[in-house]
């Protein structure tokens, strides 16, 4: 299980840095960047719903204060129309469950990928970004927040381990969403 100092999120691979956003990085006294947090997965499939649940809980938290720079959205899968939503943002954070052997969770930067992994009815975050760049000329800084999952059966609730990962991920990302000027502990392009 990861702690806030888990190396796989604090030290992402060099080639996973996010693209440079069209807008300059926010200064402490400038208007906050527009941030979209997009969770995807099927909440009816146990841990597969971690991304969607994270977004639901973050959205509830955001409503408790004035944070107009935040937008939340979720769906079963990413798809083409999400390129439109991404194009309106300075920062996009995708949140998803992961089958990888992560230590809890991981945040890594994303680049648009022209080598589209569009192999099913769903799209990858990289291909959504590529579509956003190609169609709308938008290049928001983008990240993928992956939370390790363990079970994927149609039984509803998250496993206890996945819930812990979700809570850790939420604790990690909330300070940035609250005060974007603090930045994210991943390299920016």
């Amino acid at each position: 299980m990861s702690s806030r100092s888990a190396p796989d999120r604090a030290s992402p691979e060099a080639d996973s840095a996010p693209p440079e956003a069209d807008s300059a990085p926010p200064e402490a006294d400038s208007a906050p960047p527009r941030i979209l947090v997009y969770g995807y997965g099927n909440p009816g499939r146990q841990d597969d719903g971690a991304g969607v649940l994270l977004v639901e809980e973050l959205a509830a938290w955001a409503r408790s204060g004035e944070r107009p720079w935040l937008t939340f959205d979720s769906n079963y899968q990413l798809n083409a129309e999400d390129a439109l939503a991404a194009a309106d943002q300075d920062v996009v954070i995708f949140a998803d469950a992961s089958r990888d052997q992560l230590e809890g969770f991981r945040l890594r930067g994303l680049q648009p990928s022209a080598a589209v992994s569009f192999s099913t009815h769903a799209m990858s975050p990289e291909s959504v970004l590529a579509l956003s760049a190609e169609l709308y000329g938008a290049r928001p800084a983008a990240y993928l927040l992956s939370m390790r999952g363990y079970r994927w059966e149609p039984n509803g609730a998250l496993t206890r381990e996945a819930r812990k990962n979700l809570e850790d991920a939420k604790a990690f990302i909330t300070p940035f969403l609250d005060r974007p000027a603090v930045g994210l502990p991943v390299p920016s392009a």
Partner: protein
Amino acid sequence: MSRKIVIEPVTRVEGHGKVTIHLNDAGEVEQSRLHIVEFRGFERFVQGRPYWEAPVLVQRLCGICPVSHHLAAAKAMDVIVGAGTGDGLTPTAEKMRRLMHYGQIFQSHSLHFFHLASPDLLFGYDSPPETRNIIGVIAANRELATQAVLMRKYGQEIIAATAGKKIHGTGAVPGGINKNLSLAERDVLLKGPRPMNADAMVQFAQGALEFFKNYYSKHKSFIDTFSSFPSNHLSLVRPDGALDFYDGVLRAVDADGRKILHDVECQDYLAHIREEVRSWSYMKFPYLRHLGPDTGWYRVGPLARLNTADFIPSPLAQKEFEGFKNVTGGKPNNMCLHTHWARLIETLHAAEMIRELLNDGDLQGTDLMVRGKREAEGVGIIEAPRGTLFHHYRVSPEDQIVMANLIVSTTNNNEPMNRSVNHVAKALMTGAKEITEGMMNGVEVAIRAYDPCLSCATHAYGSMALSLTLYDASGDVIAQRTR
């Protein structure tokens, strides 16, 4: 020495599957099979759950067509709560459900055509998969790609407005619907800033049809002959013979257009449909009971629907339907890739019906629910984007589901998909010693015409890719490729 080719998994369809191709001593294709390698378990999962949960629970099956499962389960539960079949609901409830369903058809068909089929058409199925995708479409036809995004988005907004939310929608409930469409919601969808309005969506759908017809005029031979074979066709039709995605009676026609299932009631489907189990696949093989498995198998989906229906009840789609029927002199169309054409005609019909419904004041009605005499058993059948979807439940006096049987669209198309693979294999792989990109792509194109959702068919989590293995007569692997 005979040989065998295996392709697994298949890209751009959901679930997990593989294709095996057996070659005989002469190097000829002897047998081809699309194997489904996941296990069905969903029917058991819903047993013991309260019946009213079913319309939401079944959305756990799959993230591709949750609305279709939502509505099919709700229709079955309508019967359980004594709300009748199909037309037993209040006008507001039925029209809200229909609007939800047209939104689902519109966005699903748009996704399939623009993102999965058009790259094959624009670049050819023998082109590299790295460019045969939506990013490639942008480079080749920016307007088409832009419209695709907007059509998807519009369909999703219809679903969100009618189902209440995008994930695990709750709009349809046993006996009705839990919300109407507010005037504000209606105005956004009907008269929103261009192009996000109903008129623009009708125009986009017409444009997609023109794109296909233009392509067809230049590649007629390929479109007409690729994996073309005679089959039966089955779908719901309205009792007057009209195309209807939401409700109706079951009709099947044979390859020559003779009716072989005469507009039977959905509640009686078990008297007419059987499923065969074959040892090499977890996915069953449905067939018409009175004809048996050898001759009673059938296609479902857009091509089948346009073969069973007598007309389309919206003017622009009807005109396109007439042109489509002229190609075969009014007889059923058995050409596999004409499924794309049929799908686009249905997309136009869905757009027209969305526009018509948004102008219908019944959507703002407040009479949402109907209840009657409680029943113990109910069947809900709907035309999902991929074809006919059956939901059948029995419920105990304590309100628990004690039996569930689902026949999903992709299962209904099991036999024709296998035949399509066999057709392509014979054309491309006779004498093969290795598996080329063109062979892989050809098999994919054939399967993709059915827009299968194997995740749904197998009730398994996840997506799939394609792998192909070639076996000789003694069962030795000659070649294998995985993508």
